[in-house]
């Protein structure tokens, strides 16, 4: 144990920032894992450039990872870091603006060369003048100490330098009293075939820890108690991983094999990557030639009785739209995951946004309704996947699940569920005739709809006696034969719409968090804004104000009580990372003067920003 003093803190926000090649994502991940294992609640926000590895030392090349952890429940990765680790001048410059006065900055002085400073427009070294006076700066020659610490290793200087992120991790682990054993185990697996590198990394980790313990300038270390959490087993998980696992679980609980047809696209690709490793669960992944083929393969598999899934981001969803329309017409279950990113067009591929809601709702020719749902946090991605499958298979309809870049890569602790407690998703395939013809002989009618769910029978190839043809031309109700009859078309258009509307009957009422029951302002969100909104209402309530908060999982159809909820508040505020897409739907449907608050910055909302917005509305009503 160190002889230095230890302070207890309630919550901390740390941001690791460096060049794309500096391993900041890994460092952040490891710090997070250590923190999770200590029982803190936490939330993370990785942030990396669109380039694979932009030129070293430049602003576009900066990659960062932020984690907020606390002794209470954490809803966001934090608005502003308490500690910034800046591995080079670019990392400092790119992140300084987010840093509140008084925050701690740990800089790698070795990288503050004239050349590197110049690359990012520093004419003078900020470490040498007073420009950083508002912050607590720890100037540490991270690279050279690391190299020194690895003096005895038989490695190139470059390899030694590469371990500097482990040095930094060691130092931070000391500062926040995190255990390093997990990281050591992790390194062992990672460098199993490279023992010298492994040893060097472990040595650097320890050296960093020792540096904190021994160096004068680091006078205090901090302790953050575990957060109270429900009893259970926990792990840390990102949204994309939770999505993948959710679909595997849905496959297991439905008894249907999972078939993913996908084309890689940031930030959705990791779902494909993960599922491609899970063949052991009967999962088939088809990396298609494009997004159209990806959804086509998923639809073909669904026709064959599989759980058809396709994953993409906004531009890919645009390409899939015609095929999704076919799925609407075929009335087959199909799940489409859109991990939204900044748009329009190629936009900001590695940044988050919520601007595909209206595309999901309306981005197809004709009246082509589908169900739309959205997870609200990384861990909620798991449940959302199960819910998407429930709706798709019960109602025989495409379901679009709208995640986003923040949920995809962000992580938080997850109480691992008991498999048996997951919803029962058993599906009944058609096995025999479902009707009789005029002469009373049994016949199979592929478009005879269930009275409750309005689902049509799912009769898969291989089932004797149920041979039938489906297609995208309008079909006669019941028989499914091609029909150009005007009345039938009108009927079928409304039937498909009614089927989607019917889903609402299976949904729980929207729950409102309104502790006093006296709030006049309701803040309503959807998707990944959950954390910031929740945190902001908490902040506002902390000042004694009353504000209600609710969050939509189901965007189409809406829960049945939504209209009543909206009308029971004097003001409804809807924060969105778009120009007001949910607000548009709410206004149209309920004629309620919903107030939009929008920011389209490729980043999640800051809690304080939202709190200010809520305050403003409260004031206007006061």
């Amino acid at each position, binding site marked *: 144990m160190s002889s230095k003093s230890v302070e207890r803190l309630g919550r901390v926000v740390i941001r690791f920032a460096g060049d794309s090649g500096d391993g900041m994502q890994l460092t952040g991940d490891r710090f997070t894992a250590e923190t999770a294992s200590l029982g803190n609640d936490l939330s993370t926000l990785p942030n990396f450039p669109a380039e694979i590895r932009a030129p070293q030392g430049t602003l576009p090349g900066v990659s960062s990872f932020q984690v907020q952890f606390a002794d209470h429940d954490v809803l966001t990765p934090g608005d502003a870091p308490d500690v910034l680790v800046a591995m080079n001048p670019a990392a400092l410059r790119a992140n300084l603006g987010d840093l509140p006065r008084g925050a701690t900055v740990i800089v790698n002085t070795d990288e503050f060369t004239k050349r590197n400073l110049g690359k990012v427009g520093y004419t003078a070294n900020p470490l040498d003048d007073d420009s950083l006076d508002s912050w607590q700066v720890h100037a540490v020659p991270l690279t050279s100490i690391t190299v020194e610490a690895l003096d005895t290793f038989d490695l190139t200087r470059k390899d030694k330098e590469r371990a500097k992120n482990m040095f930094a991790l060691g130092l931070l682990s000391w500062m926040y009293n995190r255990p390093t054993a997990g990281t050591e185990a992790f390194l062992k697996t990672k460098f199993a075939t490279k023992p010298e590198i492994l040893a060097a990394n472990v040595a650097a980790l320890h050296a960093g820890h020792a540096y904190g313990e021994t160096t004068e300038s680091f006078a205090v270390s901090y302790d953050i108690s575990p957060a109270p959490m429900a009893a259970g087993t926990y792990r840390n998980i990102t949204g994309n991983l939770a999505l993948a696992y959710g679909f595997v679980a849905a496959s297991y609980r439905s008894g249907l094999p999972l078939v993913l047809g996908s084309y890689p696209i940031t930030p959705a690709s990791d779902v494909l990557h993960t599922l491609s490793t899970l063949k052991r669960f009967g999962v088939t992944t088809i990396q298609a030639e494009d997004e159209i083929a990806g959804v086509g393969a998923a639809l073909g598999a669904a026709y064959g009785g599989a759980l058809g899934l396709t994953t993409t981001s906004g531009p890919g969803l645009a390409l899939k739209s015609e095929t999704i329309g076919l799925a609407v017409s075929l009335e087959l279950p199909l799940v489409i995951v859109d991990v939204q990113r900044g748009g329009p067009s190629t936009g900001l591929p590695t940044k988050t946004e919520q601007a595909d809601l209206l595309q999901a709702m309306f981005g197809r020719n004709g009246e082509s309704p589908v169900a739309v749902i959205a997870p609200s946090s990384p861990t909620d991605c798991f449940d959302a996947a199960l819910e998407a499958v429930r709706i798709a298979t019960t109602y025989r309809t495409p379901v679009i699940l709208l995640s986003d870049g923040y949920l995809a890569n962000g992580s938080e602790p997850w109480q*691992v569920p008991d498999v048996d407690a997951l919803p029962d998703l058993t599906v009944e395939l058609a096995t025999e005739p479902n009707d009789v013809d005029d002469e009373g002989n049994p016949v199979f009618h592929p478009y005879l709809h269930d009275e409750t769910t309005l689902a049509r029978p799912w009769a898969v190839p291989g089932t004797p006696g149920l*041979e039938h043809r*489906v297609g*995208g031309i309008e079909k006669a109700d019941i028989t499914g034969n091609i029909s150009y009859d005007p009345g039938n078309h009108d009927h079928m258009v409304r039937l498909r719409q009614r089927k989607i509307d019917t889903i609402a009957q299976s949904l729980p009422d929207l729950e409102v968090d309104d502790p006093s029951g006296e709030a006049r302002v309701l803040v309503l969100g959807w998707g990944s804004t959950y954390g910031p909104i929740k945190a902001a209402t908490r902040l506002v309530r902390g000042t004694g104000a009353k504000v209600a908060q609710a969050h939509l999982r189901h965007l189409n159809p809406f829960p049945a009580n939504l209209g009543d909820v909206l009308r029971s508040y004097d003001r409804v505020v809807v924060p969105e990372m778009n120009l007001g897409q949910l607000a548009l739907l709410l206004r149209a449907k309920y004629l309620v003067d919903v107030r939009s608050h929008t920011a389209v910055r490729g980043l999640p909302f800051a809690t304080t920003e939202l709190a200010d917005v809520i305050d403003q509305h409260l004031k206007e009503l006061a």
Partner: protein
Amino acid sequence: MSTDLGIPTLRSGTDGVPTLPEGETQNRKEFTSDQEVRWCPGCGDYAILAAVQGFLPDLGLRRENIVFVSGIGCSSRFPYYLDTYGMHSIHGRAPAIATGLATSRGDLSVWVVTGDGDALSIGGNHLIHAMRRNVNMTILLFNNKIYGLTKGQYSPTSDVGAITKSTPLGSVDHPFNPVSLALGAEASFVARTMDSDRKHLTETLRAAAEHRGTSLVEIYQNCPIFNDGAFQLLKDRDEATARILHLVDGEPVRAGSGDATRVVVRDDEGRLQVVPEADADPGRLVRHRVADPDPSQAFALSRLDDPAFAQVPMGIFRNAPRPTYDDGVRAQVSAAVDDAGGRAAHADLTALLHGKDTWTVA
């Protein structure tokens, strides 16, 4: 970066598809749906439909394990008329949909019906990727060198100079040779046949179905409404005899009969040429090799095509089995399942969800 994939050995295209019980047979009528056929009078599609309905029972497969997937076009109406499972999908996408179906269901006999526009224009990418992957399915490409359903625009197989609704002054678009394209796209089975030659068509279908992997069958099909007579020369028996180069495995490639017989020879520079048999140096005769791992000779034969049908090779250009994508994908899944000791159970899923780093709150 490379590894042994352990893809299973090659079998017939219908292996794995349930067959009729010993002794049972089916007939053409059982494969005929109750839907009224809706093509124009005289359309070549009728003959193809009749041939397919006549041929399918021969496969001896359970009818419910056969699926026809089509795109959009006159030809793509095909599935409605067969009493099998079927999907009339959207324009150009049938091979993609069939890929998902064939990959996830090894017990189905999967057929794609498409047109020259559907397959080669909007659907070109899915087509070449299906062939490259060698997904086990048979693709029937009805080539009438025109867009029928949209009333007569030129297609990617229309001749240069074709006057159509969208090329009033004649097309300046150089056409694809579907066989060359397929061979360039790594196709393992490519054949060409004709709507009106029931026997040849049936034989070709049989070989295509037998082939494990993607079988592309180009079928010359007359559209009497928008491109009538495109293959007229080949419908006349004498002209056909004179012009059709018959592709028979192991045999020289011949057209014509008697004195007028012409054969394909390889000239000094390695080029294929069609010459009177009488003039041909027997040492230069080109013998057809359908199963040659090298598709080069098949490709060279495909280039003997001539828009004016001076000669036209017909038959199976290539039938050279190689591992199929769907077998490979299924093998990886079953190997993974087997390696883990069987289908994933409750405990496996629980372990997966837990991962490596968990902690417990009491």
